[in-house]
């Protein structure tokens, strides 16, 4: 489908990349339909662009790419509602907030986005009891210096 993005311009996205949030997102309850647009083939970051509002865009991080030990439990009722099961595990993303200093960017680990790609359904799931923060630093040691390709090896 053709979508409009204030940041990326007009662009064609595959229907496979568009997911529905039946409950919207906290603060944006009326916004249901979003497209995932990856930054690049090897990047864990994606744009999450509203298909209805060109100005509404999040940047999201595939959580386990940066926080491999992240854990949480999903309520049975939510799992049933969104169609998650052992055979159809959700992919987990975190919404990223980027202050003026890029290296200070944070991920919201209290309210992950859980995506059921089979049915293209998603939810922003709020963890009630959690040790995580809504502002978890993504790069506590600063931004990675070199691209990830083979030429980046310096040791």
């Amino acid at each position: 489908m053709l979508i409009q993005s204030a940041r990326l311009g007009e662009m064609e996205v595959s229907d496979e990349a568009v997911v529905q949030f039946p409950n919207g997102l906290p603060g944006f309850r009326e916004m249901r339909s979003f497209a995932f647009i990856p930054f690049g083939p090897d990047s864990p970051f994606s744009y999450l662009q509203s298909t209805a509002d060109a100005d509404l865009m999040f940047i999201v991080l595939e959580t386990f790419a940066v926080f491999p030990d992240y854990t949480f439990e999903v309520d049975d009722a939510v799992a049933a509602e969104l169609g998650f099961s052992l055979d159809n595990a959700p992919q987990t993303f975190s919404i990223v907030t980027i202050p003026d200093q890029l290296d200070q960017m944070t991920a919201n680990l209290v309210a992950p986005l859980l995506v059921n790609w089979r049915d293209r359904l998603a939810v922003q799931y709020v963890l009630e009891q959690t040790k995580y923060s809504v502002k978890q630093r993504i790069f506590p040691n600063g931004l990675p210096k070199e691209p990830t390709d083979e030429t980046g090896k310096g040791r």
Partner: protein
Amino acid sequence: MLALTRKIGERIVIDNQIVVTVVEIRGESVRLGIEAPNEIKIYRGELYDAIVNENREAVASNPAKDLNVLKTIPKKKKE
């Protein structure tokens, strides 16, 4: 806003499906029991507000920044 006075054990019924019961009052704290269908999401207000604020801040933080560096961030392996 509707304000109701209730005693311990008394209930409020909302929309034929949500029942809020005053379970306990101790000092400045009130313990509420809430029965609602699964699809009704219930959060403590301050937690919900924190997520709303973070979502809004995230949207507002994006425009016009050069984010090319994010194209080539390596993924970490589980240790």
